[in-house]
């Protein structure tokens, strides 16, 4: 609720990729609402700490979903709380590459194993924006930042490959400069019954401007890194998805979508509820009677 709120004192830098992500998410949520008839207040955005997470404050009025802007790196367990408390809600995580893949990385594999039915939108800019330009897991090796003045020592993390390898059941890749396409991917991710991640190239114009690398430049003879995933790619084919993730370039589209995806809350209904006999408090106490 902030564009018109004079007290809100955070603003993205001009040209920041996150503007496009904000717009795309708004469209996606709106479109989903029209399609399903669900009110906007059935959506909960769980935001990470970083420039990216501030997206959660930028929806207003009739179009404002619920939000929770918590602590750095913990979007996934907070989302576990919201979703498993209220499986009827549509839960969306928005986080930066530092938040999600560095401090919060320990939470990704467990969520994949659980197949928690949420949608994650990662604003990957290869850098820590909010803390002013330090090295992030997805930054490339040898990259010079203020925390790696002599070059980054680690190999850059390939997030798509990582997500696939830990068993995320929906993996897509998008670009902030193409919000319409991204909104469509977000809609598909929200419809997927399970753990969905969209890794969005969302350049940081201040500390790591990758627009040119992504879009290419005819004048400078730079080939675009972005390319659309070919239509004949079968997203249910995990090996093919892995090949795309490992190949050069930045793909746009759905890499992988598990065909028979059963989310955690459904597993509970199917396997645990039939085994369980509810007991009332008096019945429980009765078991301890002398």
């Amino acid at each position: 609720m902030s564009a018109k709120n004079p007290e809100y004192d955070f603003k993205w830098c001009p040209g920041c990729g996150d503007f496009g992500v904000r717009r795309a998410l708004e469209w996606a949520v709106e479109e989903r609402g029209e399609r399903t008839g669900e009110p906007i207040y059935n959506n909960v955005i769980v935001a990470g700490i970083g420039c990216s997470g501030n997206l959660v404050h930028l929806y207003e009025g009739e179009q404002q979903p619920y939000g929770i802007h918590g602590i750095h790196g913990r979007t996934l367990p907070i989302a576990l709380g919201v979703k498993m408390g209220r499986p009827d809600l549509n839960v969306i995580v928005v986080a930066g590459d530092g938040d999600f893949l560095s401090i919060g990385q320990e939470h990704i594999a467990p969520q994949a194993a659980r197949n928690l039915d949420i949608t994650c939108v990662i604003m990957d800019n290869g850098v820590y924006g909010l803390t002013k330009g330090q090295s992030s897991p997805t930054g490339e090796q040898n990259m010079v930042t203020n925390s790696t003045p002599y070059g980054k020592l680690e190999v850059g993390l390939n997030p798509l490959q990582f997500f696939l390898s830990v068993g995320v059941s929906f993996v897509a890749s998008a670009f902030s400069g193409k919000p319409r396409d991204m909104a469509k991917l977000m809609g598909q991710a929200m419809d997927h019954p399970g753990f969905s991640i969209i890794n969005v190239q969302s350049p940081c114009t201040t500390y790591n401007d990758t627009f040119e690398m992504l879009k290419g430049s005819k004048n400078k003879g730079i080939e675009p890194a972005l390319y659309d995933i070919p239509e004949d790619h079968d997203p249910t084919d995990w090996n093919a998805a892995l090949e795309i993730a490992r190949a050069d370039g930045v793909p746009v589209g759905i890499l992988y979508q598990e065909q028979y995806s059963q989310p955690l809350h459904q597993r509970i209904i199917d396997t645990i509820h039939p085994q369980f006999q509810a007991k009332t408090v008096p019945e429980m106490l009765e078991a301890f009677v002398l």
Partner: protein
Amino acid sequence: MERRDFVVRFAGEGGQGVVTAAEFLARAAATVGYHVMTFATFPSQIKGGPTYTQVRISTDPVLSSGDEIDVLVALNLEAYNNHKAEVREDGVVMYDTVFEIDAETRALGVPIEVLAKEAGEARSANMVILGALAHLVNMPKEYFQDFVAERFKGRDKVVDFNTKALELGRLHAATSEFQLGSLMAPIRPEGKQILIKGNDALSIGALQAGVDYYVGYPISPATPIFIFMEKNLVGPGRFAYQATSEIESITAIIGAGYAGKKAMTATAGPGFTLMSEGLGLAWMAEIPCVVVDVQRGGPATGLPTKTEQSDFQTALHPAHGDSKLPVIAPGTIEECFYSAIHAFNWAERYQGPVILLSEHMMAERSQNIPMPDLDLVPPETRETYTGDNGYLRYDGAELSAMPIPGSPGAYVANGSEHDSYGDTTHLAERHVQMTERRFGKLKLLEDGHYESEGTDSPIAIMPWGGSKGPGREAWEALIASGQSIGWYYTMFLHPLPAKLLEELLQKELVIVPELNYLGQFSSYLRTYGIRAESITQYTGLPFKVSVLEERITKRVEAHGRGVVRV
């Protein structure tokens, strides 16, 4: 000689059935109508390792597990050596004749396994011991026999060999000269009684409060609460789940609390420390949740299987920045049940995190308590917002109704300082307003009840948590010996009941027995201007009543001589 009270300690190695024997004795005695309390210490290892469980049986309500042992049942030489010093002079050591002990002890050797086999089943070894114990205090043999018959009803063979084993043990003890007097017939407590452990009582209390979301991670001594929830908190609208860390536990219950659930987790020191940042978030964003810390010895991995009351200050201030969390600490098994309801009521009422501080000592001990009264503490539920979208969730300086996702009133629950919408802001006046709002809500919790007796005296003792029992027993003894000391007790540690605070401020000296080095609770009382001082102990064990009597007496005498601190 008639006696009202009888203390038995079973000591041996993990896996030797020490706990089973003790629990069986406690249950049998409680079933006949005695009051019982057990006290257990465990080895950290799973198999083997020294362990003991103590059972106190009494015709009166039991407040502590007993200072001295009447009978030590030593199942190996090490146990004998470790515990013999605590056997009272006229007590008896009962030992297994598979090993030998020094001749001078008053010792009753029992060929436990031989007799058990004679009864028809080596597994009946515990019954041999119980039969011998019954003889030592002249208990009618029917007590245990009836209990065995009832317990193993329908399994005639089991009843048969256990009954035989009881009898063989009894006859064997009768061949010795040892007799510890006659335990008086029980005075059956009024009303229905249950025999229960603190962790179970607390878990059922939470269910009574309406808990419907639990995420936890295994850690002694809180694991039984987690296991209980995994088993019982199931069904539509409910969720119990194993997290991958306590960071996940706390943030998950915050997400659930935000989504309208009555959410809880339970942990011990190391896990509680990991929850630090999350608890700050719950305080800041005003999200109800309950965190149980079953204290063990600390810091770091500390003493996982021992008891201590050393997390109080951490419970009060687990997070960085300006915050001071509500803390409730039960002092008895009965209070474990009710305190869980109070903790949820507080969380729902002030919309924030509440720390329920239990202790190893209570978590793992069994005691008979009256069947809890389910009408005594009615469960409360937070005030929820029911208007349209466009609500100012954090408006004003006081508590406001909480919107729940899935209904209108969308807002951002924010862990950064925020304005009325929940949007981040750094304005000085907002931080002032919101800080005061958060602290101001604590006023809603100052209505807790407390115990007070002998309020005319300028000196009082005020134990907290599990030191209540030994503290009370010591106080009763001191009063009986003619001393004039007041008694105060509450499980509502922060905020303190407003009236209690007023009364304590009038005292010349408030003595706080507590199991930590720093004197954590008395230093907290001093921040309010109360002249409080601690009697500390940090052995990993609860207070002995006699030790407390002596130390309280000394402190009171010193006060009489004008000494301010000892």
